[in-house]
C-alpha cells in the first residue's frame, strides 16, 4: 500500500521525467541549431535550480525559512574558483566546494538551529550578509571586483571526457548532476528519517512525544541543504569563468526563494521548474525593458495570491489522482488473482 507521501513523491517523479526529457530534447535541438546563449542560460538555470532545491528541503519539508541560502552557494563557488585557478581539475574543485560547504553548513547550522521561526530566518540572513561583506572587503579574494581568470576545465567521467567549454556537454553534465541530487533527496525523504523531517514541518512540538529528537533532523536537513547549495555553487565558476560577492547577496537568496514559491514548495521538482521559469523570464523580459524587476515582483505576488501551491500545484493533484487510480487497479488485480 502506498501512503500519501509515496503518491506525492511519485507525482514529483513524473514531473521530473517530463522536465528531464524536455531539457534533453531542448539541449540536443539547441546544439543542432548551433545556439550557445540559450544552452548556457539553461545551464545557469539548472545550476540555480540546485540552490532553489536546497531551499525547498528546508522550507518545503522541514519548515525552516532560510533567507541566506546563497551563502553556501557562494562558498562553493569561491572555493571552486580558487581551486580551479591553481589546479584546473573538475573533481577536485567540486570536492573542495562540497567539503567547504559541509564545514560551513555545520558551523552555520550550530548557530542558526539554536532558534526557531523568524529568528532562524534573520540569523540565516545575517550570516550570509556578514560573509558577503567580508569577501567584499578582502583584497586577496578579489574584493568587490570578484575573481576572474578561471580556466575552462575538462570533465573526466571515466568512460568519456567532456569539456565545460562545450555548451552542450556542460549542459548535460549539469543536468545529470541535478538528476542525481533530485534522486538522492527523494530517497532521503522517503526514508524513515525523511519522514521525521517532514513531521517537523507538520508539528514540531509533537515530534519529541513520538520519541524523536528534533534537533538532529533539523541539523541534518540544514547541512544537507548547505552541501547541495555548495556543490552546485562549485559548478558556477566553470560556467561563467568568474565569481563575485554578489553571488552571496540577499538578491541571490531572494531570487532562489522566489523560484521555490513560484514552482511550488514541498515538491523538490517545483523548485527546478521555478528556477527554469524565472531565469528564462528574467532573461527575456530583462532584454525587453529595464523595469523587469517590477514585472518579476508582480509575478511573484500573483503566484503567492492565486497559486498557493505554485505552478506544480496546478497539475500535481491531477497526476496524483491518476496514480491513486492506477494503484487501486493494481491492488484489485492482485486480490483478484490470489483468492
Amino acid at each position, binding site marked *: 500500500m502506498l501512503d500519501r507521501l509515496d503518491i506525492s513523491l511519485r507525482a514529483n517523479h513524473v514531473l521530473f521525467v517530463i522536465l528531464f526529457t*524536455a*531539457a534533453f*530534447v*531542448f539541449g540536443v*535541438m*539547441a546544439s543542432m*541549431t*548551433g*545556439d*550557445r*546563449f*540559450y544552452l*548556457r*542560460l*539553461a545551464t*545557469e538555470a539548472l545550476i540555480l535550480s540546485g540552490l532553489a532545491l536546497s531551499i525547498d528541503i528546508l522550507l518545503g519539508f522541514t519548515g525552516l525559512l532560510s533567507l541566506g541560502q546563497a551563502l553556501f552557494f557562494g562558498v562553493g563557488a569561491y572555493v571552486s574558483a580558487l581551486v580551479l585557478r591553481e589546479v584546473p581539475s573538475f573533481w577536485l574543485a567540486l570536492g573542495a566546494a562540497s567539503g567547504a560547504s559541509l564545514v560551513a553548513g555545520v558551523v552555520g547550522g550550530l548557530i542558526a538551529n539554536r532558534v526557531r521561526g523568524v529568528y532562524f530566518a534573520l540569523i540565516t540572513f545575517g550570516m550570509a550578509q556578514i560573509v558577503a561583506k567580508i569577501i*567584499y*572587503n578582502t*583584497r586577496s579574494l*578579489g*574584493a*568587490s*571586483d*570578484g575573481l*576572474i*581568470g578561471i580556466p575552462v576545465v575538462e570533465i573526466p567521467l571515466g568512460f568519456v571526457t567532456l569539456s565545460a567549454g562545450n555548451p552542450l556537454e556542460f549542459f548535460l553534465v549539469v543536468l545529470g548532476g541535478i538528476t542525481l541530487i533530485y534522486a538522492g533527496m527523494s530517497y532521503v525523504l522517503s526514508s524513515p528519517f525523511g519522514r521525521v523531517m517532514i513531521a517537523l514541518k507538520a508539528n514540531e512540538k509533537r515530534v519529541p512525544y513520538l520519541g524523536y529528537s528534533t534537533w538532529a533532523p533539523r541539523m541534518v536537513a540544514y547541512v544537507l541543504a548547505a552541501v547541495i547549495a555548495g556543490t552546485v555553487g562549485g559548478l558556477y565558476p566553470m560556467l*561563467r*569563468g*568568474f565569481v*563575485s560577492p*554578489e*553571488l552571496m547577496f540577499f*538578491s*541571490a537568496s531572494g531570487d532562489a526563494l522566489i523560484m521555490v514559491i513560484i514552482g511550488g514548495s514541498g515538491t523538490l521538482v517545483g523548485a527546478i521548474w521555478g528556477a*527554469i*521559469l524565472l531565469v*528564462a523570464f528574467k*532573461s527575456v523580459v*530583462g*532584454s525587453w525593458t*529595464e*523595469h*523587469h*524587476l517590477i514585472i518579476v515582483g508582480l509575478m511573484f505576488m500573483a503566484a503567492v495570491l492565486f497559486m498557493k501551491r505554485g505552478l506544480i500545484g496546478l497539475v500535481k493533484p491531477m497526476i496524483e489522482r491518476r496514480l491513486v487510480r492506477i494503484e487501486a487497479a493494481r491492488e484489485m488485480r492482485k486480490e483478484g488473482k490470489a483468492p
Partner: protein
Amino acid sequence: MKTKFWVALATTTALAMPALAQDAIRIGVLTPLSGTYAGIGQQVRWGLELAAQEINTSGGILGRPVTLIYEDSQANPAVAMQRAERLFDVENVDFLTGTVSSGVTLAVGELAERSGRLMATTVSFADSITGARCSPNVFRVNARAGQQSVALASWLAAERPDARVFYLGPDYEMGRSTVAAFRSNAEGVGATSVGETFAPLDSADYSQYFGALRSARPDVLYTSVAGNDTVRLFTQLEDFGVRANLTVLGASGTVTSQNIAAIGAAAEGFVTGVGYSTLIDTPEHTAFLESFRAASGGADPDLYGADSYGVLFAYQAAAQMAGTTDTDALREAFRGLTWNTPQGVKTIRAGDHQAMQQMYVVRVEGGEFRIVGNVSAADAIGDDLCERF
C-alpha cells in the same frame, strides 16, 4: 511548450542575424539601467545616443549605420556576464561598451577575449583594468583613478606645498584603492600624511572620526566618499566647525552635479581632478554641450556622458583606419589611436590600452565648478604596468 519557444526563438535570431549584420554596425551597450547606478547608466545612454545620431546623419561608419543594443547590467557582475553573453552570441554585436562597475568590466573583458570581440569602458576607474589585469581586447577611454590622483597631486604641490594630509575613505575596495593611489601621489610631491581612516558605506554619523582628524592637525583633507555619504560628511564637517582652515580634496565622484545642490554651501572650496568639466572653453565642446542638453531634456553631461559620447568616435576612427570591423585589424588600429573629443584630443596608449588625455583640476566656487588648473596628458598618464602585451 517552452522548449519549442526557445528553439524557435534561437532559430529565428540565428537566421535573422547575418542579414542584419551586413547592414548596421551593432554596438552592445551593457550598462546599469536600474538600481544604484542607474543615474550613471542614464549619462552613458545620453552620450552614446547623441554620438550614434551624429555619426548616422553624417554617413555612418564605413558607410554603415550604427545601432545601439542595450542590456541592463543591474551593476551585478553575475547578471552582467549573462547579459554580455547574450549581446555577443545572440545579438552578435561588433563591439561592447557601457560597463560601469570595475568588477563587471574585468569579468566582461575576459568574456570579450573568449568571444574574440573588443570592448571599451567609459566609466570604470580601477587602475587594474589597464594595469595588472589588462586584456588585449579591453580599452578604456576615460581617465583612471591614477590619472585623477596625479592631476590633484600636481595642484596640491603648486597651491599647498608641504601640506599635512589626512585621508578619509569609504571602507571598501574602491575607497581603499583611491586613498592609496592619492596618498602615494601626494607623498611623491612632498606632502606629509598625518593619518587615515575608513568609514563604512552609508555612514550616518561622521563626527566620530573628527577627533582623530583634529588631533592630527592636517591642513588638507582628502576623501573619496560618494553620493549621499558626501552630503552627510560635508555638512557635518561644516556643523562641527572642523572645516575651518581645512582644504578639502576628493575623488572625481565625490561631488558631482547630482549631489552638489544637496551639499550646498559646505561644498564651497572643494577641489578635485577630473577628465571632464562643463566649463571647457573650446568651440567643439560648446557645440557638444548644446546638443547634449537638447538630447537629454536640459541635463548637463558629466564625465560619464562625455566619455561615452567620445567612445563611438574612437570606434569610428579605428574602423575607418582599419577599413574593416575585424577584431584583429581593429585592435591594431585602436593601439596608438588619436581622435578628437569634446574634451580635447585623446590618444590610446598602445602598451596598456589606456586613453591619455588632458586632466583638469576643478574647484567649487559659488556652487559651481571652476577649472583652476590642468595637467597635460603625458604628465598624468603614469607608468605602463600592463605585462600581457
